């Protein structure tokens, strides 16, 4: 699905990714974890083509993403902070994104699911953080792409919406899609993900299932396993 070879990225003097090699096979939920500043968002943005790597190749479904934009038809991306143009109405934003990509009718179900009907005529600048995040979810899940990338999807969500989001992720997984998630909420990661990728100082420190991680670190639970990696590496 996604293969990354020897990916390097520097921002000025700050070397964020130092040779990442990663292969993500089709189907399943993959969580990208790591401490703050370990390069999670940079990695994801490189896959999306928003950050241009200094070195290395990325292919998505066998297509090299360099100087290519059409491969993004197969990707649904949910950004970390829901920053939308503030003078647009929710309805207009959804219509616009539909117009820019393929048309879809899934948005109605999602709007109902997250109870967004009362907000459709409001401007995005006047919405609360959680409501914006729900709009973000609708925009991401209304298209039927085979790769879904979620950057901190749980931010600002109330418990009911969180449950709905988890259900949504599971339904998408059952359709055979590949889902890439970053999150700092360990319980969420443990609950949804099949495999984790742990980034540390710009390199991949661990890739495998959660139980493999527990055996490797000799810790009884996931949260402690992560904590032990961090304290062993002084991160």
């Amino acid at each position, binding site marked *: 699905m996604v293969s990354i070879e020897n990916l390097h990225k520097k*921002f000025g003097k700050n070397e964020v990714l130092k040779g990442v090699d990663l292969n993500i096979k089709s189907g399943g939920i993959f969580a990208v974890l790591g401490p703050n500043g370990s390069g999670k968002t940079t990695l994801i*943005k490189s896959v*999306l*083509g*928003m*950050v*241009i790597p200094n070195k290395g190749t990325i292919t998505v479904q066998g297509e090299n993403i360099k100087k290519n*934009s*059409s*491969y*993004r*038809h197969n*990707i649904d*991306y949910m*950004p970390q902070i829901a*920053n*939308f*143009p*503030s*003078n*647009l109405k929710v309805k207009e934003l959804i219509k*616009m*994104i539909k*117009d*820019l*990509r393929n048309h879809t009718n899934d948005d109605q179900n999602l709007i109902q699911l997250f109870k967004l009907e009362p907000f459709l005529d409001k401007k995005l600048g006047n919405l609360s953080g959680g409501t914006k995040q729900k709009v973000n979810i609708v925009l991401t899940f209304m298209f039927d792409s085979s790769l879904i990338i979620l950057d901190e999807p749980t931010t600002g969500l109330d418990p009911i919406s969180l449950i709905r989001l988890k259900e949504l992720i599971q339904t998408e997984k059952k359709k055979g899609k590949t889902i890439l998630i970053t999150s700092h909420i360990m319980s969420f990661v443990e609950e949804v993900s099949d495999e984790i990728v742990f980034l540390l100082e710009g390199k991949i420190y661990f890739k495998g299932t959660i139980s493999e991680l527990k055996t490797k670190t000799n810790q009884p639970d996931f949260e402690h396993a992560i904590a032990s990696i961090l304290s062993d590496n002084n991160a």
Partner: protein
Amino acid sequence: MLKILKYSFFDLMRSRWSYVYFGFYLLLGVVLLFLNNDLSKAVITLMNVIIVLVPLIGTIFGVMYYYNSKEFSELLLAQPLKRSSIFLGQYLGVALSLTMSLILGLGIPFVFYGLFKSNAIWDFSLLLITGTFLTLIFTALAFNIALSNENKIKGFGYAILLWLFLAIIYDGIFLMTLIFFEDYPLDKLSLVGTMLNPIDLSRTLILLKLDISALLGYTGAIFKQFFGTSFGLIVSFIMLIVWVVLPVLRIMFKSKRKDF
């Protein structure tokens, strides 16, 4: 690109500033016609206003729009769209809405005053064409500055400096050079000097067309002597087009290499 252009254009058409800009030109046109009572004289006064004001508005609007629509751009970058079409679409959206305010704002009072029956119509059209060129040039320059500077304050600072330099300081330096080297033949130098500044170029272009030798000044006179009126017009038009194309190419080049 056309879809982005459409959204940027309508977004700006709804903003208050487009109306303020439009209203300002409307008022300016009405007041000038009222005071001058003569179309040709109003055109000359307008030229002096347009040549300084249009670049200023183009620069400020361009920089402001780029920074304000940062979120919108990031949303678009994750969609299956080419980078060049995102930024060119936004650029054209800004430039076209500014041009529309200019043309409608000035056009309406002049048309009501009887522009179509007068022989000033070509001078007036040339004025609007030059205004359009200046909008395209300075909005493109503003986008270049904004793309190269993440920091808003810096971006604004550079944009204002650019305008100040081309609208005022450049002429000063140019004049000083001419005085300083007055013992040498300066024809070529002043020709090149005029072409390197779109504001000077537009001024010369309009004055050539209006054929007012008293206002042409040294460079204008040389321009006229060197090229003749019609060839001079063509050369200055070509230079204005080059002034649009180069910054637009840099927008495309720069946007392809930028990290978001």
